[in-house]
């Protein structure tokens, strides 16, 4: 026992603040999640024992450990209880949920084949829609940005389009366009399939969203960039094309991909207009073989497609954040070399 610091009677020492032993959180942790809570409690007790013995540093150290283990109890405890809840959910009533969602159809090759055939339609639809949305939304965004009084009417058209199609539920857009256009037999548009009408509807709905993404990207470019480009003699169009849009596109990729993920999921809406895509086929399994498992399998297909994409969006966002604060290398400050005469 160090002789320099005598132990006060009440076990607390005032130096730079009291030594905190986290007794109460440790007790709570022990009760709620004893596996790690006990460790917190042991450290907490050790902290007060050392403090009482005059070992302030030791007391602080043990107190800090107690706090760490309280946090562990929270994090791991919540995790274990969550998993426990899920397991419980799936095992009560003789594992009824598991039987519903994971029955033999899961191992039925022909069921998978049927679903994949449907999924291929979803994939075609969203690929087409995405490919068309990209230039379409860019056009809308650029029109919305056109400067001057002369372009006001066409700007209003673009704004009205964006506002109305963002207000429209995708399913309603698909209904309106599919059934309406089928009924009206417009020239050129009358022989399209339901799939094609749905692609058109999705392009219109997501074009409105994506044009907002483009617009935010364009507006994120500082006006001084435009001034610099115009001052060099680049026209408005050239400035947009070479100076504004490239960095804007880079900045908005994550937001764009988020919208595309939404678009991919919304291809399931085609089931409502009688297109034999994934969800329709899962429902067909449900009706013909009295199994819900088809829905599980459909969900798994969407997982397989979308989760890698969401991970990629996260990665891109982190990378974009890093690039924005890239460190400059300031080490080489060469002094200007003398100029040779011009010409």
């Amino acid at each position: 026992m160090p002789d320099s610091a005598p132990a006060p009677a009440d076990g607390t020492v005032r130096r730079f603040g009291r030594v905190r032993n986290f007794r109460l959180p440790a007790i709570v942790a022990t009760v709620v999640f004893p596996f790690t809570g006990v460790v917190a409690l042991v450290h907490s007790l050790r902290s007060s024992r050392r403090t009482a013995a005059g070992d302030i540093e030791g007391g602080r150290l043990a107190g800090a450990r107690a706090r760490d283990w309280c946090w562990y109890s929270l994090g791991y405890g919540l995790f274990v209880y969550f998993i426990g809840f899920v397991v419980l959910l799936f095992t009560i009533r003789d594992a009824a949920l598991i039987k519903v969602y994971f029955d033999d159809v899961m191992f039925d090759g022909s069921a998978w084949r049927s679903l994949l055939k449907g999924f291929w339609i979803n994939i075609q639809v969203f690929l087409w829609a995405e490919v068309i949305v990209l230039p379409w939304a860019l056009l809308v965004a650029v029109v919305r940005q056109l400067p001057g009084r002369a372009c006001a009417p066409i700007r209003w058209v673009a704004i009205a389009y964006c506002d109305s199609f963002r207000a429209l539920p995708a399913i309603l857009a698909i209904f309106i366009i599919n059934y309406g256009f089928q009924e009206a037999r417009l020239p050129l548009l009358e022989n399209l399939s339901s799939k094609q009408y749905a692609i058109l509807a999705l392009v219109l709905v997501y074009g409105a969203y994506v044009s907002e993404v483009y617009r935010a990207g364009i507006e994120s470019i500082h006006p001084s960039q435009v001034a610099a480009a115009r001052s060099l003699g680049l026209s408005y169009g050239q400035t947009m094309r070479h100076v504004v849009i490239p960095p804007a596109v880079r900045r908005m990729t994550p937001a764009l991909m988020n919208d595309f993920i939404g678009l991919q999921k919304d291809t399931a809406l085609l089931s409502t207009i009688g297109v034999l895509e994934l969800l329709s086929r899962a429902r067909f399994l449900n009706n013909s073989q009295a199994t819900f498992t088809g829905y599980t399998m459909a969900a798994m297909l969407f997982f397989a497609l979308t989760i890698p994409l969401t991970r990629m969006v996260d990665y891109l966002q982190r990378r974009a954040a890093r690039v924005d604060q890239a460190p400059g290398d300031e080490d080489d400050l060469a002094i200007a070399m003398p100029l040779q005469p011009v010409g």
Partner: protein
Amino acid sequence: MAFVELRDVHKHFGRNHVLRGVDLDVELHQVICLIGASGCGKSTLLRCINALEEIDGGVITVDGDRVSGPGIDVDAVRAHVGIVFQSFNLFPHLTALENVALAPRKVRRMSTREATSTARELLARVGLVDKADQYPDHLSGGQQQRVAIIRALAMSPRLLLLDEITSALDPELVAEVLDLVRELATDGMTMVLATHEMNFAREVASKICFMHQGTIHEEGPPEVIFSNPEKERTAGFLARIIAAGRL
């Protein structure tokens, strides 16, 4: 007729009457320095000469041709009148080389190869050829500003406008940029520069213009303006500059 002429130029921002009848003559190969208090309209004047701002009254001519008013091909004007900004404004998604080569390629319709080799020559002239493939983020402020200057030079402008090009730079980086401007002056480039670097203005200027409340209040050769200005306000401004230790 002078190479650049401004006659009774007016400019409003809303109700803010910023330029109130500016008259200015710039002869070929002259270097004009605009000095004056912050907010007196130096930047606005330069932006008007470059047609980045439309003027509300008066006439601006460059080489006898009017560059202000309706029907002017602003892009053609700007292709002959370069401007460099205080904040560099390099294009961050392009390398130093691409920054310099962009306008010659797109405006002058040079082939990529020709534009690239010209840009490389210009970078070599300012000692930055080894930075050609770096992005602006990875250049120091002084290097960025030198790239910005040669980006303007790449268009072979007949007139170069420089707007406080050193005031965003750390003191130790100012010299390298001013050296470059000095070289340009020696080579006979016609320039109008707004600056707070009074010593530099005194050294390179053919004519100093003191701006006050949107007009050119007094102009003359640097020896006269800096040592015995006629007007009271000029003397007052210079006294404040000297008190601030900047002259």
